[in-house]
């Protein structure tokens, strides 16, 4: 190999060595490490260094809101999620400078804009914050905002085009039911069922039971008959007014959402030494250790059911984004090729630097709301008024007990609804 060829191959070697350097990701990795050790407080501290970056501000607030929730600081979590909502709305508008940057420099120069499923789940987690705080009117506001956000996506049907709103609709049904707004609850449950069906996911039995009870209460004779036929054998109780007893809804936020990582291809023109590099994100699921859960209160128990499969939503979102990401990656290579060519014509060393710098700047956008769970499960349990001690048992796929948590002194009055969350990484 002649010396000139060696000189031309030097950029390729440097790119291969240097492209593995991580910056922003390191802090997130530390955060995740703490989370996997069930230490949300330390995870929150690890997140702090990311506070300053404006283009990642929404992402920072999303992660911060979730971590604060995990350590029980619900009011602070509400505040963080509200900031994330405001930022998310402002980021809907197009930034010409960021768009140009994404076409010429790297995808990462864009401000982080939450995916559709992340926006839906933001409302879900904010609603859960309010429910757990006992602020039902505020939770109802969140339910209305969610409906508005979904209508913005599809004004005709008010549904997310690629799913992700099944559990959200189910939860809004719970909120309306708590407010005694039976017809709104019925509509929400109905929409939830339709999304589960369309996504070919099994609807939770507890949802079927509420559809049976509400269609009966609202005298929707044909619809009730249809549900009876479809959900034959499901145990449901008619709605008695005034409502007797209370209800506990336990929600398990299981595992951590899939993580994005970079997959890249780098090649070099032997003639000119020009580097061509395409870096795209890919997803790696981290299957949670817990497969299911159950809730126990004395003799009574309820089995948890899968209600949302967040990992599938992330997968589907990335699949939709990939054509655009690939097209922009190719455009950047063309832009870099031209820039390096012009620089080489002026000065070979300048050309070398432009070539190298351009290739190094090509990095996949691996940002995502990493503190979301892998999946969400729900269990509902009707209890008599009084003080109860709940036990939540987490099971692995082989049926072995992974963890047992006690929720002491849960006081229920007639008609009370209590929502309890358990985050398990």
């Amino acid at each position, binding site marked *: 190999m002649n010396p000139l060829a060696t000189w031309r191959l030097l950029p390729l070697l440097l790119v291969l060595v240097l492209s593995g350097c991580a910056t922003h990701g390191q802090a997130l990795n530390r955060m995740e490490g703490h989370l996997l050790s069930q230490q949300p407080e330390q995870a929150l501290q690890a997140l702090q260094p990311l506070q300053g970056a404006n283009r990642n501000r929404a992402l920072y607030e999303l992660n911060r809101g979730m971590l604060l929730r995990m350590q029980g600081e619900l009011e602070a979590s509400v505040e963080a999620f*509200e900031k994330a909502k405001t930022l998310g*709305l*402002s*980021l*809907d*508008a*197009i*930034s*010409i*400078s960021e768009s140009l940057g994404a076409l010429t420099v790297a995808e990462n120069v864009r401000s982080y804009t939450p995916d559709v499923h992340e926006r839906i789940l933001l409302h879900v987690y904010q609603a859960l914050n309010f429910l757990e705080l006992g602020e039902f*009117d*505020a939770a*109802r*506001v969140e339910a*209305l*905002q969610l409906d*508005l956000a979904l*209508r*913005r996506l599809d*004004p005709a049907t008010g549904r997310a085009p690629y799913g992700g709103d099944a559990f959200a609709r189910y939860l809004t049904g719970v909120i309306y039911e708590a407010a005694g707004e039976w017809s709104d609850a019925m509509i929400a449950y109905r929409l939830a069922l339709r999304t589960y069906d369309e996504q070919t996911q099994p609807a939770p039995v507890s949802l079927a039971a509420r559809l049976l009870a509400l269609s009966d209460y609202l005298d929707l004779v044909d619809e009730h008959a249809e549900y009876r036929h479809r959900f034959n054998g499901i145990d449901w109780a008619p709605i008695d007014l005034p409502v007797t007893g209370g209800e506990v809804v336990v929600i398990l936020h299981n595992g951590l959402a899939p993580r994005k990582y970079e997959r890249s291809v780098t090649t070099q023109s032997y003639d000119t030494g020009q580097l061509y590099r395409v870096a795209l994100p890919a997803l790696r699921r981290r299957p949670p250790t817990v497969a299911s859960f159950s809730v126990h209160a004395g003799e009574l128990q309820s089995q948890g059911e899968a209600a949302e499969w967040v990992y599938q939503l992330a997968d589907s979102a990335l699949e939709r984004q990939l054509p655009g990401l690939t097209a922009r990656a190719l455009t950047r290579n063309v832009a870099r090729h031209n820039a390096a060519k012009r620089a080489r014509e002026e000065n070979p060393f300048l050309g070398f630097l432009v070539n190298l710098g351009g290739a190094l700047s090509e990095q996949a956008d691996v940002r995502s709301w990493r503190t979301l769970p892998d999946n969400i499960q729900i269990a509902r349990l009707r209890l008599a008024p009084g003080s109860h001690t709940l036990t939540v048992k987490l099971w692995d796929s082989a049926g072995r007990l992974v963890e047992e948590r006690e929720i002491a002194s849960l006081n229920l009055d007639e008609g009370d609804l209590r929502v309890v969350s358990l985050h398990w990484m």
Partner: protein
Amino acid sequence: MQVRQVGALTWVIMLLVVLALSGCSTRVDRVGAEETHDLSGRWNDTDSRMVSEEMVADLLSRAWLTEHAERRGGRPTVIVGEVRNLSHEHINVNTFIRDIERELINAGRVTFVAGGREREAIREERADQDLHATDATRSAMGREIGADYMLTGTINTIMDVEGRTQVAYYQVDLALTSMADNRRVWVGQKKIKKVIQRGRFRS
């Protein structure tokens, strides 16, 4: 000459871009409730103040006030009860209640008494005085003025969305209920329509 033409063209393009973008920021217009718009915006302090002023003015101009004076003599005593936020927005209802209280008190035509958590705090303080204050300065228990009427209400919204244009409509309903016999003596309603157009571009 050619270089100068290119430079001038670049400046013209940049100027057009700046002018185009400057017109794209978020704009909110407050319009009359009677006008037809399919959009609405966020509740703010101006709305809270405007609604409370207009509704309290309406409340104090109605027949119930003179009827009360004829029937029971003196100024009626009013307490503000729950105002529920049933809207699409997280509205700080407390500031709205404060605005109503301020308008009621400043009008000087009703006696206003504290309720809710504030009343609990006052009672705690009175109980504390019972133990720690001198006889001369102590406020005795059981001397509170019972309210004749309670003011309650709701804030509702109807929202509509089309592309980058948001549609909504606020409706604030307040009702004054006689504590003695649950009679509704006054019902007030205030509507606000707003138009919010979200910018297509940002910096």
